[in-house]
């Protein structure tokens, strides 16, 4: 009997939504909000930027649902780590929302800059730079919390063998890589690589691993023998005859 088959399929779909919509959203609003002339382009292209943000907000719905559906499966193997995973992913979702709201505020700064007739540009540039500095820290923090959540998840998956161990090891190593990239970014060590390339090198392993694991969960589900081992270790109920 393969228990929690439905949970596995839902979790797989949610992983795909959380990862894919993040990249799609960034690809849409990135050229508007991340370019050097954002003060002049953000407000005129606000519809595009807002659509990109809304697509990313779908991730915010998916991110906390993943641990909700995984919790009943993981708690049988390690309740502490299962609770830890739920808390860290909820925390991740809240940080994500804060960063997204801050990004939207750049549209307002652009609006006021254009309304002022582009006068006193340095004033608006300072505000915009502060918001972007805030966002960059917030984003680093978000990725770090995500990496810690991933380490917790792959630890439980490795111990429980709910998915093939190569997937758990891959995820664990990829999460460590992304944590390393955060520390390097904070200390401004980039090995002379352009920013986007540096981020992609460390992000691609975890992104690909999550897609592979999502497809595995959808097609094969959790390893049923891992559940049977847990059930066998629980002593049978005493009944009075």
């Amino acid at each position, binding site marked *: 009997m393969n228990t929690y088959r439905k949970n596995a399929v839902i979790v797989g779909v949610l992983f795909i939504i959380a990862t894919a919509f993040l990249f799609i959203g960034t690809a849409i609003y990135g050229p508007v909000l991340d370019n050097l002339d954002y003060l002049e382009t953000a407000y005129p292209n606000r519809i595009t930027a807002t659509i990109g943000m809304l697509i990313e907000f779908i991730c915010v719905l998916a991110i906390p649902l993943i641990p909700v559906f995984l919790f009943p499966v993981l708690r049988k193997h390690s309740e502490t780590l299962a609770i830890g995973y739920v808390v860290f992913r909820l925390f991740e979702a809240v*940080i994500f929302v804060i960063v997204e709201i801050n990004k939207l505020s750049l549209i307002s700064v652009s609006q006021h800059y254009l309304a002022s007739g582009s006068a006193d540009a340095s004033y608006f540039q300072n505000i915009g730079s502060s918001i972007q500095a805030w966002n960059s820290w917030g984003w680093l923090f978000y990725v770090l919390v995500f990496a810690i959540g991933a380490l917790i998840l792959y630890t439980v998956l490795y111990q429980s063998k709910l998915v093939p161990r190569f997937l758990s090891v891959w995820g664990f190593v990829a999460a460590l890589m992304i944590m390393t990239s955060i520390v390097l970014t904070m200390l401004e060590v980039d090995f002379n690589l352009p920013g986007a390339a540096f981020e992609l090198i460390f992000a691609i392993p975890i992104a690909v691993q999550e897609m592979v694991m999502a497809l595995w969960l959808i097609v094969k589900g959790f390893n049923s023998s891992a559940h049977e081992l847990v059930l066998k270790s629980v002593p049978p109920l005493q009944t009075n005859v």
Partner: protein
Amino acid sequence: MKAELNTIRLLGAAQLMVIIGNLIMDTLLSSAIGSGTISDILLNISNNITEMRISNLVALGQTLAIVVLGILYYVVFFEQHKTVALMSLICFVMAALTMAVSKMATNALIPLSQEFIKAGTPEPSNYQTLANILYFGIDRRGNDIHMLFISLGFLLTNYLLYVSREIPRAISIWGIVAICLLLIPTVLALYDREFLPGAMILALPYAPY
């Protein structure tokens, strides 16, 4: 019922990490920011960028340690007092969140201070206004709210320790009294930070605890 020994030890280690991390972070931040007018603060930050970055890094670790602490307290006590354990977890997560948000503002001071120097330290200018908002408005206020949540979290956990007798009751009573006293300057600081220096004497019993 005695909780698993390893989890309790981990809990103690996490609590020590939170306290030591807080001391390191505050020391680094105070030394990087210094004192004086907001212009002096911007100058100090631009001269101590590495210290600021390390302080922010420590704050990041501190935030995660607070979340882990909350989780461990919940795991140890949820069977005995589910509601109080859940409330303490929520308080610790909120404390971590407010610290994260306030440190985002502190981080934004770094490029602002560099722009201030590049512009030739103009007085008065919008740099000072922005720095005031980021440092005194968001970072310091965020820190006050963080202190409120973490004090409430520790108050609830000390209550749990008192009723469960996991540690001698004298220590948990000391903790409850010390935190109640600490809450007074914390709440006063939310009203007006001018109360803080005088009221901090009430925080003394908490230090050795």
